[in-house]
C-alpha cells in the first residue's frame, strides 16, 4: 500500500491577522465610515476574539494608516486621504509594470490564458487591482512574497478612496485592454509593460520624466 503523500497543512492564520483582514475590508468597503469610532469591545464580539488580538490588529491598522488611535478618544477610522491614494496608485503602477516585463515572457500558456480571460472581462478600475483582479494575478504569479507584501500594503488606500469617492477612480478609457490581453497572450512583456505604463502615466500624481522630450515641443 503506498504511503499517502503528506499534504502540506494549510497555513494556520493568526487570530490577529483574521481580525486585521476583517476590519481592513470593512474600512475599504465603507462599511466602517471615515471618522467612525471603533469600539474594541464591539470588535471583540463581532470577530469573536479576545482583547489581545483585537488590539494587535488595531495597531497594525494604525501602522498602515487606516485608523487613528487618539488618546482619550479611542480609535477612529481614518479620514479619506486622496493624496495618499494617488501616491500609492503611482507605486502600484511601477510594481505592476516591472512584474509584467519580467514575468509575462516566462509564463506558461495556461497562465497567460487565465490573465487574458480576466483582462477581457474587466469593467472598472477596481476590478483591475482588487483581490483576484488582473493585476493581482500578474503580481501574484511572480511568486515573490515580499513584492506581494508591498502590493497588499498599497492597495487598501486606493480601493477605499475609489469606493467612497468614485470621482477619484480613473477611467478605463485610456487603458488598452485589448492591447494588454494581446501582449500577455503573445508573451510580450515589454509591450504589456508599455500598455500599463501609458495608463498609469495618464493618472500619475508623480509624473514620469519624458526623455527625448517631445512633450516640451510647442505646437
Amino acid at each position: 500500500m503506498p504511503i499517502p503523500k503528506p499534504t502540506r497543512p494549510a497555513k494556520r492564520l493568526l487570530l490577529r491577522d483574521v481580525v486585521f483582514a476583517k476590519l481592513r475590508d470593512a474600512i475599504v468597503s465603507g462599511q466602517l465610515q471615515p471618522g467612525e469610532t471603533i469600539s474594541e469591545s464591539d470588535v471583540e464580539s463581532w470577530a469573536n476574539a479576545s482583547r489581545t488580538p483585537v488590539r494587535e490588529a488595531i495597531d497594525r491598522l494604525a501602522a498602515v494608516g487606516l485608523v487613528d488611535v487618539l488618546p482619550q478618544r479611542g480609535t477612529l477610522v481614518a479620514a479619506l486621504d486622496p493624496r495618499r491614494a494617488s501616491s500609492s496608485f503611482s507605486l502600484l503602477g511601477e510594481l505592476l509594470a516591472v512584474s509584467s516585463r519580467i514575468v509575462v515572457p516566462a509564463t506558461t500558456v495556461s497562465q497567460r490564458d487565465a490573465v487574458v480571460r480576466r483582462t477581457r472581462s474587466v469593467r472598472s478600475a477596481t476590478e483591475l487591482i482588487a483581490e483576484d483582479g488582473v493585476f493581482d494575478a500578474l503580481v501574484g504569479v511572480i511568486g515573490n512574497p515580499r513584492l506581494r507584501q508591498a502590493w497588499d500594503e498599497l492597495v487598501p488606500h486606493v480601493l477605499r478612496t475609489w469606493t467612497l469617492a468614485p470621482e477619484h477612480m480613473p477611467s478605463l478609457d485610456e487603458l488598452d485592454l485589448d492591447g494588454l490581453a494581446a501582449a500577455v497572450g503573445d508573451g510580450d512583456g515589454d509591450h504589456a509593460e508599455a500598455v500599463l505604463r501609458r495608463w498609469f502615466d495618464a493618472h500619475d500624481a508623480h509624473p514620469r520624466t519624458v526623455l527625448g522630450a517631445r512633450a516640451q515641443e510647442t505646437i
Partner: protein
Amino acid sequence: MPLPGSAAQPAGRTFLRDRAYDALFDAIQSGQLLPGEVLRDEELMAWLGMSRTPIRHALIRLAESGLIEMSAGRQTTVAELAPDRTNRALFVSAVFNEYAARRVVGTDVRAIAEALTARRDEVRAAVESGDGLRIARGVSAFFRVLTERVGNAELDGQVGRIDTELARFLSPGGAVTTVDVQALRSTVDVVHDAVLAGELSAVLDAFQALYVPTRESFLSRFREPEID
C-alpha cells in the same frame, strides 16, 4: 535563550514600545540575537524590564519588517538569513529605485549632484572598511537621494521598510553575508555616473541584475514538469 545584559534604562520621553523595538532591533542587527533563536515573552519581559503589551507591539513591528517570524502555533523566532529572502527584498528595492530613476533621471539633477557624489564616496569607503552595516546604510542613503527627490510619501515609507530588511542581510550578525558587496559598489558607481549624465537606460541596465534571481526562481517553480 541567552539574552544580552540588561537593557532596562530610565524611561525618558520615549514610549516603552519604541524602546522595546529599538533594543530588539539592535540586538538582532548586532548578532546578539542569532537567526533562529526563540524569543519568549517572559524572558523578554525580564530582560527589558517591562510588561507584555509594549513587547508584543514591538514584536509585531519586527515581524512586519521581516526581522522575526511569528505564526500561529509556533514559537516566535529571529528570522533566518535565507538568500531567497535577500533576493526578494532586493527585487522590491530595485522596483522602487527604478520608479525613482524614471522620474528623476533626465531632469535637472544639479540640486542632488553633491549629495549623490558624497554618498557614492561613503559607499566606497564602507566597502573598503568591510563593515556590513555601514555598507548597507551607505547604499540605502545613496539611493534615497533619488527616491526622496520624487516627493512621494508612500514611496519613502516603503523604501524605509525595505532598507531595514536589507540592512539586516548585510549586518555582521549574519553568519553568512549573502550579498556581493563588490557588485553593490559597482552598481552604485554606475548609477551615480548615469544619473549625472542623464542616461536612464544605463541606470535601468544596472538594476537588471537585481531582477534575475526572482525571475529564475519563477522559472524553476513553474517550468518544472509536474510530478504526481
